[in-house]
């Protein structure tokens, strides 16, 4: 960075990238200014006299660290550094060296912000690592934001959900400080936290007019009644994320009531705690009410269930638009998806098994006329069926993410031929997704003639078990 000659203090030079027009403006302004000292000198000293609006504008392009350096240049620049406009947004990063590789926001900076800028803060997030200390530090800061009128608050775990390790009362009291003082919270992201029904009541009591977005997936202390309270009172709610156990017919009806705005996005996580867990069903009429009220809303569902837990799902029409199966899902369930998800836009299947999904895919192509994105992991589909699927969907498929292993060559298409066929129907060049072959030459090839088995010497080495495998 350049050093300033003259000017008030020696320090780090001005940031790069100031627009050339500013120079001209500065020069004209400087010559008009009443302060005579240095006005007709080398232009370098004019940097100190940049009008504050311009400085502010420039500072907004700088990352915080550079801005902090710039603030050391002189009183004027220092003043600009502390202008409220620059302190509306802040992301506190709280990491412990023992648990994270990332640096943390400097504690002195945090102190300064709380002291000088807490009443400027409007959009705040906390990023914490796996350690409980980080989550507790976040709560401590939250507790001190009494002069804050936040519009946005995000509590984000970057690794293991550490907010869950904080003593519940500590967390709740910290959160309540924000709820009570802000009164105009618009977006709230509190996934994986110990938030509970009473604190949601406090949220609602103070922010019901302004709340538009609420993300609270995996908050085990909230009950269906707790979230219902939110839906009943916060009529401006447009985005909601929660776990399936909180979903109820009443909730959907509340979100579709006349007083309620159109919902834009509903995200539901269906997670199995124990194998064989039972899940309740949602009535078709409740979903229908949602669709009637908010015809364009997106329903995003993430399933993390054992294969035999899907009984209550997809037996009737459900307006899901984005569907993710994070674990193995059966052929049968995918068949039901084809029949009952007419609004489906994206389907991602992590794993299925070793029986081809030919029929199921064709059915999905036929009935899910909005489908534009599909991802298949450990599944199997015959090449012919896959080509048929792509043909039926045509160019609406903007995302086709198929692992190479999924496609089984048959008598019509080999793997090399298939990518041309598919590209043809998609109208763009397409290849399957690949995994690197980590180990060259290790695969045993499928052979129609059994080759002579050779007893390898190491089969009888110390520790080798000879049961089963030859």
């Amino acid at each position, binding site marked *: 960075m350049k050093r300033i000659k003259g000017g008030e203090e020696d320090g780090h030079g001005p940031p790069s990238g100031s627009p050339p027009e500013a120079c001209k403006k500065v020069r004209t302004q400087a010559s008009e200014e009443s302060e005579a000292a240095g006005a007709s000198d080398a232009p370098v000293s004019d940097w100190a006299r940049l009008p504050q609006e311009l400085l502010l504008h420039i500072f907004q392009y700088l990352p915080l660290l550079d801005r902090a350096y710039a603030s050391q240049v002189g009183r004027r620049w220092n003043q600009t550094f502390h202008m409220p406009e620059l302190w509306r947004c802040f992301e506190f990063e709280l990491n412990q060296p023992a648990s994270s590789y990332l640096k943390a926001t400097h504690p002195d900076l945090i102190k300064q912000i709380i002291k000088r800028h807490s009443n400027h803060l409007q959009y705040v997030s906390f990023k914490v690592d796996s350690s409980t200390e980080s989550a507790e530090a976040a709560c401590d800061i939250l507790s001190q934001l009494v002069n804050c009128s936040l519009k946005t608050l995000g509590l984000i775990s970057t690794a293991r959900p550490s907010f869950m390790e904080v003593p519940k009362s500590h967390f709740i009291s910290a959160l309540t400080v924000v709820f009570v003082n802000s009164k105009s919270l618009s977006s709230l992201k509190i996934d994986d936290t110990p938030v509970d029904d009473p604190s949601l009541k406090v949220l609602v009591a103070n922010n019901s007019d302004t709340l*538009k977005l609420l993300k609270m997936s995996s908050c085990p202390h909230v009950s269906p009644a707790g979230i219902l309270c939110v839906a009943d009172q916060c009529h401006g709610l447009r985005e909601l994320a929660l776990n399936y156990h909180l979903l109820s017919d009443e909730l959907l009806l509340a979100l579709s009531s006349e007083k309620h705005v159109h919902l834009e996005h509903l995200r539901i*996580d269906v997670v199995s705690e124990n194998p064989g867990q039972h899940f309740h069903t949602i009535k078709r009429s409740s979903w229908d009410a949602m669709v009637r009220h908010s015809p364009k809303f997106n329903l995003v569902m993430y399933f993390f269930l054992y294969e035999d837990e899907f009984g209550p799902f997809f037996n009737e029409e459900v307006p899901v638009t984005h569907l993710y199966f994070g674990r193995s899902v059966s052929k049968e369930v995918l068949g039901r998806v084809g029949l009952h998800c007419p609004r489906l836009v994206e389907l991602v299947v992590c794993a299925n098994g070793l029986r081809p999904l030919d029929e199921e895919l064709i059915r999905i192509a036929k009935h899910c006329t909005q489908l534009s994105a599909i991802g298949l992991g450990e599944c199997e589909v015959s090449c012919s069926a896959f080509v048929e699927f792509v043909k039926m969907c045509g160019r609406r498929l903007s995302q086709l993410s198929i692992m190479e292993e999924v496609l089984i060559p048959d008598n019509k298409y080999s793997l090399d031929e298939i990518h041309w066929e598919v590209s043809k129907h998609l109208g763009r060049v397409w290849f399957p997704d690949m995994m*690197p072959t980590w180990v*060259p*030459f290790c695969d045993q090839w499928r052979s129609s003639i059994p080759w002579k088995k050779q007893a390898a010497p190491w089969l009888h080495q110390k520790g080798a078990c000879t049961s089963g495998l030859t």
Partner: protein
Amino acid sequence: ECSSPPADALMQELCRFLLQCLEDLDASLRKLNSRLFVIRGQPTDVFPRIFKEWQTTCLSYEYDSEPFGKERDAAIQKLASEAGVEVMVRTAHTLYNLDRIIELNVGQSPLTYKRFQALVNRMDAVELPAETITAEVVQKCATPLSEDHDDKFAVPSLEELGFETEGLTTAVWPGGETEALMRLERHLERKAWVANFERPRMNANSLLASPTGLSPYLRFGCLSCRLFYFKLTDLYRKVKKNSTPPLSLYGQLLWREFFYTTATNNPCFDKMEGNPICVQIPWDQNPEALAKWAEGQTGFPWIDAIMTQLRQEGWIHHLARHAVACFLTRDLWVSWEEGMKVFEELLIDADWSVNAGSWMWLSCSSFFQQFFHCYCPVGFGRRTDPNGDFIRRYLPVLRGFPAKYIYDPWNAPEEVQKAAKCIVGVHYPRPMVNHAESSRVNIERMKQIYQQFSSYRGLGLLAAVPANPNSVANDGVLNSGTSRGPGGSSEGLFTYTASFPTEKGNSTQKRRREEDISLRSSTKSWRQSN
């Protein structure tokens, strides 16, 4: 019986392999009235002395594309030029001259395998491997052998390197070019019986070390990748009656080539920090979890059996590598660098470029991977080997479990565990994570990270790989960290994934920028849903 041998045993295996390679080379040279000279010491000390003593006029060696290799070789070249010695360097460890591939890609290493394939298609044909040295080739050349050759220049023995050789069993992987070539022939013989060159189907047998396995020989240079390339081509032409082989035939060779190409100009290739092609992911520092994984004590038999095989034999199948790499980085959220180091220590065929590249790939840290796919530590194993024989072989404590429960013994009723004489929590560890929960958390974290890149914003989990990942075009939309635009902060944010226009409270900005340059997405932001 099946106790875990100490890591020293594997180091011994590795050294033994290397020494056997050298002995084999020496034996082959002896047939031509020559010998191998093994010189001990640092190259920078040894070479000046040798150049003088032997009156060297020409030094030749195989080009090493890895960054440290290049640095070392540059130092040696300098020494050679100072001593007036001509230097001849040839590409042999890779199919192509990697710099030409990079040149073809406007001076940058390709960042996706597809792009790499497209470049390779445009390259000139692979050069033939050098002929083997025969008596005709040697002709009048003579090796100045002294009587005390064996004292001064012999291949060191295992004892000299400090290993115990008492009770040593036959090597799992016998080293040397002779062995490599024999295996190559056998490997191709089997291929010849397969009429269609189909993709192999995984089965229980695939998981075991194959008698025709070639990967360590490739790593140590006993087997030329070009030799394999041409033998494969010949075989294909024979079987398919002279048709042109598709690029996919060489798939396995090309993956290796791809990683070498991406690594060659990047000394930070094996790290996250400072690595321009690596996504900065906030991995957990969790030495306890790492140890359990490395020692095969996760409580997931599929993972533990694989890690046990790795410890005992120094080799695991590539899909087994995927499974354990996925488990470490996705279920345990431990950095891929840690896993890479363990593999480096334990794998007999790990090389720097392929190991680091594969770990980055598996952890979704680079190469524009879709991150939705996550191998299940129960299901994947079960689908590969339904009977569980692989588990029983390497974890004999679980031998008594029926196939139904062998992949998730913690779900087995008490009677079954008693009958198997193995109580979970006592004789075998409980599962260290709940996979449903860890995959849920994982997909959230991945989404969080990838939302920084505009092509991943939106509702979906799938994202558009940029049309040209190498273009340095600034799409300006990428970095959600800086507050851009007039007025600083923008009003209420209703992007569907609620990205906050927040200010980064520390100096990670710089790191982000580096990512942005290499991970530029296309100018189309992904908003396909509506």
